[in-house]
C-alpha cells in the first residue's frame, strides 16, 4: 500500500511536466506526422493523402540538401571556435587575482542580448555604406558581407560564436574551479610546463564541461534561424540556408504545412543521428582519460 502511495505521489509530482509534454510535444508531433502524409494547407475541408511524396520531394529538393550541408558547415566553423574562445576566455578570467565576477558578468552579457538587436547592429555596421566599409574600400578592400559565399557564413558564424561562447564561459569556469589545485602543484613539482599542464591536466579534467558544450553546440547547429533570416535570407544562393529557414519558408510563406512537417521530421532525424554520433565520439575521447 505504501508503494502505491509513493507511485501516485511520483506521478503527481511529475504531472505538470507530463501534461506539458503531452500538450506541447506529443500532440504536435502526432499532428505533424499526420500532416507529412497529406498535402493539406490546414484551411481546405478536402485533405488529400500523398503517402511519402512530401518526404521524397524534400530529400530531392536543393534547399533541403543545402540545409543538410550548411548545418555541418556551421558546425565545422562554430564548434571549434566556440570551444577555443570559451576555454581561452574562461582561463583568462579564472587567472584574474580579483574582480573575477565583474568580468564574468561582462562576458556573459552577449548571451542576454536579443539576437534580433545584434543582427540589426551587425547589419548597420557591415552595410555597404557604413563607416567600416567606406574605410575598407578606401584601403582597397571591398567586401559584400551579406552576399558573399565565404564572408556571409563567417559573419553569421561569428555572431553565433560570440553569443554562445559567453554562456559557455560559465560552464568552463565551473569546470576549472572543480579541478583540485593539488594536481597542478604536483605537476609543477614534476617539472611540467604550462603548455603540458594545459593539455595533460586542464583539458582532460574539463571533459564534463567540454562534453556538455560539444553536445549543446552540435544540437544548436540544426536550429539556426534568426541570424541567417535577418542577415542573408539563406543566401547567397543557398550558402546559409538552414533547416529552420526551410521549415519557416515552407510553413509560413508557402503555407505547405505537410511539406514543412516532412522537412521538420527529416531535420529531427538528422539532428538526432548527428548528435548521437558526436556524443559517441566525445565519450570515446573521455574514456581515454578515464571518464565514465
Amino acid at each position: 500500500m505504501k508503494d502505491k502511495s509513493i507511485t501516485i505521489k511520483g506521478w503527481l509530482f511529475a504531472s505538470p511536466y507530463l501534461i506539458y509534454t503531452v500538450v506541447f510535444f506529443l500532440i504536435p508531433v502526432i499532428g505533424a506526422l499526420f500532416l507529412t502524409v497529406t498535402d493539406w494547407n490546414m484551411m481546405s475541408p478536402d485533405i488529400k493523402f500523398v503517402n511519402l511524396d512530401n518526404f521524397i520531394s524534400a530529400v530531392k529538393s536543393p534547399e533541403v540538401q543545402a540545409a543538410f550541408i550548411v548545418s555541418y558547415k556551421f558546425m565545422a566553423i562554430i564548434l571549434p571556435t566556440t570551444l577555443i574562445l570559451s576555454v581561452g576566455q574562461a582561463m583568462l578570467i579564472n587567472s584574474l587575482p580579483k574582480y573575477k565576477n565583474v568580468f564574468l558578468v561582462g562576458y556573459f552579457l552577449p548571451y542576454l542580448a536579443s539576437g534580433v538587436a545584434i543582427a540589426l547592429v551587425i547589419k548597420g555596421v557591415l552595410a555597404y555604406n557604413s563607416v567600416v566599409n567606406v574605410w575598407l574600400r578606401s584601403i582597397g578592400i571591398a567586401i559584400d558581407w551579406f552576399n558573399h559565399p565565404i564572408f556571409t557564413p563567417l559573419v553569421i558564424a561569428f555572431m553565433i560564436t560570440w553569443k554562445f561562447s559567453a554562456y559557455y564561459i560559465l560552464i568552463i569556469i565551473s569546470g576549472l574551479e572543480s579541478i583540485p589545485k593539488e594536481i597542478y602543484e604536483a605537476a609543477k613539482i614534476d617539472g611540467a610546463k604550462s603548455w603540458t599542464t594545459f593539455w595533460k591536466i586542464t583539458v582532460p579534467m574539463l571533459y564534463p564541461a567540454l562534453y556538455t558544450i560539444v553536445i549543446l553546440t552540435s544540437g544548436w547547429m540544426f536550429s539556426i534561424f534568426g541570424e541567417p533570416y535577418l542577415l542573408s535570407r539563406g543566401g547567397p544562393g543557398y550558402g546559409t540556408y538552414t533547416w529552420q529557414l526551410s521549415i519557416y519558408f515552407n510553413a509560413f510563406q508557402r503555407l505547405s504545412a505537410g511539406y514543412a512537417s516532412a522537412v521538420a521530421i527529416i531535420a529531427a532525424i538528422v539532428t538526432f543521428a548527428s548528435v548521437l554520433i558526436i556524443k559517441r565520439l566525445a565519450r570515446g575521447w573521455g574514456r581515454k582519460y578515464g571518464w565514465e
Partner: protein
Amino acid sequence: MNKINVKRYGAFLLVLLMGFSIALTGCGAKITSSDAKATGGTIENSAVSFEFWSAPNPTQDKFWKGMAEEYMKQNPNVKIKVSSIPEKPSSEAAIQAAIAAKSAPAASENIMRSFAATLYQSKAIVPLNKIDGWDKLVETRKMADSVKPWKLSDGNQYVMPIYNNAMQFGWRMDLLKEAGITEVPKTYSQVIEAGKKIKAKYPDKFLWASQDLGRADDWWTRWFDFLMLYDAATGGKTDFIEGTKLVADDKAALEVLTFLSELQKNNLLLPSQATDPFETGLGAFATVGPWSLPTWKEKYPDLLSNVELTLPPVPDSVNPADSKTFADAKGIVIYASVPEEQQKAAWEFIKWVFSNPDNDLKWLQETNLPPARDDTATNPAFKDFFDQNPALKKFAEAIPNSIPPMDNDKIVDLQTIMGREGVVPVVNGQKDPETAWKDMKKALQDALAK
C-alpha cells in the same frame, strides 16, 4: 491515511488539469453571437457580434476601429471587435492558423489576389457578388473597373478591393542634374546612358542600389523589380501567368532580363545591404510606394522635392506612354467558417463603410493608401487632399495603369523561381539573360504543372 492522500492528490491533479484546460481555452476565445448574449454587460443586447481583423499596421487598425465605433453607434444591436491580424510569422500564416483552429474572424482586410486564390480554393471565403447589395456597392463606390481584376477563376468576386498602390519608380533629380541629365529617362537605353553618366561623375554611386535585387527567397520583391518592368514592357497586354498557365511574352521577359544584365555589366547595380541607399544618394533610381513618403517626410524632409516619380522605363521599341506598373493592392474578404448571420452583419458593415466617399477620404488621410476606386484621381472629395499631397496624386493617377498580382495560389513558389533562376543570377552576373529566361521559363512551367 493512504486513501486520504490518494483523494487529496487526485483532487490536486484535477484542479491542475482544469486550470490548464481553462488557460488553453482562453487562448482561443472568440466572440460569437451566443457568447454575447450569455456574457451580458456591454454586449448583452447585441443581436449579432463579429470579429474584424485589420492589417497589422497602426494607421489601418485605427481607421477600422474608428469606423466600427461609428457604425456601432448607429447600429446598437451590432458589436464589432476590431483587432490587428497577428503579424508573426506572417499575416497569411495567422489567417491560416485561425481557419485551422476554427477561430477565424468574420472578415479581414490585407488580402492580396494570390492569397485570395488560396483561400478560395480552400473554400474558406464567400463570394461577395452573391450577397445582396454587391452590384449597388460597386456602382456607389465607382469601382467597376477596379474590381474586374479581382475576379477569381470561377468568375466570382471574393475580394472587395480597398486600396491600390500603383507602384512608381523614383529618380533622384539632383543626381541626374549633376550628371548633366535634365529629363527623366524613359527607355532602357536612356536609363543605361543616364547610369553611365552618373557613374562617370560619381564612381562610388550606382544607378539602382537595392538588396532586394539579390534576394530570391523574398519572393515578393519580384513585384518591385522584374514584374514591374515586365508590366511596363508589355504595356499590360500580356499577363505573365494566367491562372495555371505561363503565358508570358518571351520578347518582353527577355528584354527585361537583358536590361538588368546591361545594368550589371556596367556596374550600375548594387544588390547589397546598404542603409537607405536611395535616400542617401547611393542609388539614383528606386521602386517607391506611398508608404515611403511619411518616412521620407520624417527622416529626409528635403528628399521629396528632389525626387521625380514615374512609371517604369520601357524597352526602346515601346512607347513610354504605354508603360504600365504593378498594383500593390489589397482588399477585404468574408470567411466561410463563421455563421451566416455574422457574414451578413460583416457585409452590412463593409457596405456602410464604402458607400460613403468621405470614409475613403478618411482612409486616404489616415493611411496614405489610394482607395481602389475608378475615380480616385478625379473625385472632388479627394481634391483637397491631393492638392496638399501632390506626390500621392501620382499614385492615384496611375491606378488605371496598374496590374494586380497573379491569382495563382503557388505565387510564393513561382516568384521564388523567378528570383532563383532569373533575376538573382542575372543581377549577380552568373547567367546571361537568354539562359536565365530559358531556365526560369522551364522551372515555372514545371512548377505550374505539379
